[in-house]
């Protein structure tokens, strides 16, 4: 074959590494308000452009502009901002607990708060989220007892999960929060199956599936898409593209070849790419996708573009693989600051109220942490008996015998 030279192997590389200047020059940010808003019953075929652009509502002056700037209840807006602040206070305090050796592990969602909270506030009682470990906002914007969350993190006597799960792997059916798996991607197909069941039973509930950019590589993600494509169940398929998966940049999940939103096109699923640091855009697009699901129009995939400001977890040091300053250079800014400015512009909020709210949540979480710590830290207060419960509904004889042998 004289016409062909030797092949070569390609491995994607991020534009910069530690020591380099952060570089987002290839990252296109359309002006807020410029992306169209199709009717909810529009055909997947007629909105393919929305998977390669970025829906944004809040402009640089903090105004909500364009077709996605929907009328929003002031209570939702204020609750959204307050929940984001609460989540931040929670994350900070839990990091401290880990550094103090009171918990083995923690993961923050700094910079991504608008996404879980903006969507949860568009969902209804009875809907079910199938989250990853970075959607604590789903619980923190609801009435889930924060002391219980901390007890789970401390794995103590009041841990609702009885010491069985790694910290932050919460579970609460009542709050529409499916038990978190440590195995990436598995929940995505569960969400699709749950939504199929809702349709089979003629119910009105919908599901929300969550996954990270890196985890879209897992086979279960693709299984979810093909099932969603075939059965058109009422599910919102969220991809949180925070640019990183531990040390792997989004290009290693194929993000440089096509956007994550474009994954849906091969399956004929409507798909939108959205500024995930823009609470107004998150809420508006979530409402749109949720309405489609409720009207039996089927699944919608949404790529939320954001940035993982924090280390992957308490076991990670991101300065080993990305420039330290990268998160400050991130072009989409801080979701808290952007919503804050918007609300101040509307006259619903002020610098003073912001400071007050920060102090209020700091205090709330401090007090809750103190209470939770009184039930034990780092596994203290847990019961060895609990090891054997819930393996099965009824404990089989061999487990009974083992428990006896342990002497508990």
């Amino acid at each position, binding site marked *: 074959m004289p016409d062909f030279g030797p092949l070569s192997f390609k491995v994607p590389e991020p534009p910069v590494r530690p020591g380099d200047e952060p570089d987002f020059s290839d990252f296109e940010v359309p002006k807020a308000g410029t992306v169209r808003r199709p009717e909810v019953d529009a055909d997947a075929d007629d909105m393919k452009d929305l998977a390669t652009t970025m829906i944004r509502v809040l402009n640089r002056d903090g105004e909500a502009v364009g077709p996605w700037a929907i009328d929003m209840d002031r209570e939702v807006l204020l609750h959204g901002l307050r929940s984001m602040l609460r989540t931040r206070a929670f994350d900070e305090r839990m990091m401290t607990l880990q550094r103090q050796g009171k918990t083995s592990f923690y993961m923050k969602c700094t910079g991504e708060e608008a996404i879980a909270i903006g969507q949860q506030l568009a969902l209804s009682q009875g809907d079910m989220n199938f989250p990853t470990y970075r959607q604590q906002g789903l619980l923190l914007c609801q009435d889930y007892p924060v002391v219980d969350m901390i007890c789970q993190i401390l*794995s103590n006597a009041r841990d609702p999960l009885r010491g069985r799960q790694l910290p932050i792997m919460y579970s609460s059916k009542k709050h529409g929060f499916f038990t978190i798996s440590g195995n990436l991607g598995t929940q995505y197909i569960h969400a699709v199956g749950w939504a199929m069941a809702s349709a089979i039973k003629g119910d009105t509930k919908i599901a929300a599936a969550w996954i990270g950019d890196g985890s879209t590589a897992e086979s279960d993600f693709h299984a979810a898409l093909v099932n969603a494509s075939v059965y058109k169940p009422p599910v919102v398929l969220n991809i949180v593209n925070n640019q990183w998966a531990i040390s792997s940049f989004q290009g290693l999940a194929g993000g440089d070849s096509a956007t994550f939103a474009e994954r849906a096109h091969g399956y004929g699923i409507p798909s939108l790419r959205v500024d995930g640091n823009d609470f107004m855009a998150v809420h508006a697009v979530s409402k749109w996708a949720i309405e489609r699901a409720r009207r039996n129009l089927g699944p919608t995939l949404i790529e939320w573009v954001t940035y993982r400001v924090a280390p992957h977890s308490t076991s990670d040091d991101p300065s080993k693989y990305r420039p330290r300053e990268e998160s400050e250079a991130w072009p989409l800014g801080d979701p808290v600051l952007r919503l804050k400015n918007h609300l101040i512009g509307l006259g619903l909020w002020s610098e003073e109220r912001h400071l007050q709210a920060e102090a209020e949540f700091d205090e709330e979480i401090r007090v809750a942490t103190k209470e939770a710590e009184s039930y034990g830290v780092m596994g203290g207060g847990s019961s060895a008996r609990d090891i054997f419960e819930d393996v099965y509904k009824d404990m089989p004889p061999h487990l009974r015998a*083992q428990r006896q042998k342990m002497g508990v």
Partner: protein
Amino acid sequence: MVQMTMIEAVRSAMDVMLERDDNVVVFGEDVGYFGGVFRCTAGLQKKYGTSRVFDSPINESGIVGAGIGMAVYGLRPCVEVQFADYIYPAYDQLVSEAARMRYRSAGDFTAPITIRSPCGGGIFGGQTHSQSPEAIFTHVSGLKTIVPSTPYDAKGLLISAIEDDDPVVFLEPKRLYNGPFDGHHDKPARNWTSHPLGEVPEGHYNVPIGEAAIRRTGADVSIITYGTMCFVAEAAVAETGIDAEIIDLRTLLPLDIETISQSVSKTGRCLVLHEATLTSGFGAEIVAQIQERCFYALEAPIERVTGWDTPYPHAQEWDYFPGPARVGRALRSLMEVI
């Protein structure tokens, strides 16, 4: 010889093999630029380039499946699955493909791939960072399964695994990465720097696949174990003063039944230890083979001390982990049988 941790030993094995054999490639999640979440591949991409050592998408069936494809081409991939707890998506590729390829093609196609993965508990990692799934691999015909317990063995066995013409599952007890952990979690951690088995040749050497090591010779009881439990056994023996022979299997399959049966025939008593759950665990196979060969030499029923038959808990890790106290109790009760 240099003193190495098990992490350094594993890295050194890959380094040696990347250097010696152009067909060796190393990849997995966070393995390339970053050098792996446990640092086992640190520096290798820089040394050998991105075509030999690289990051992969987060897809374990893809890592193993692509590895098999490369092996079929003629490469010798050594891939990493970040935690053994995440190996299940790759199970079909291992069981239905890698394990049977030689058989179904009558030797026309083979898959000389090595799958490395950290296993075992002791790091407060909860159910998805603590499992010991070795038995689901030993149950599969066509796979070899290795669990080293020292830096010396880890390097020599990993080199043998990469050179082996059949697929090998290589499980690295993560609690041994930095030192010999004996189950006394409340005592200061020991490291490999002063341990004789932390002394490792810098260059190429083999520890043969399929050969057990006798860690301690003894007359009264044989302890058959592998991985972290080797050191738990040592601690229990020291604490009980019972003169036990400790056999570190190193390779689970093919099993060195000769060494085991010689020992049990000598001592007449046997304790089988592993971290993994009891029922259908690898211990069951060991016990079955011992009774086939040593029935008339046995003076007491063979005992097993293992993880309980439940998922691996988080808070109750030290109630779950079969530590030296439980092992000591079993040893004493074994010795009481007359």
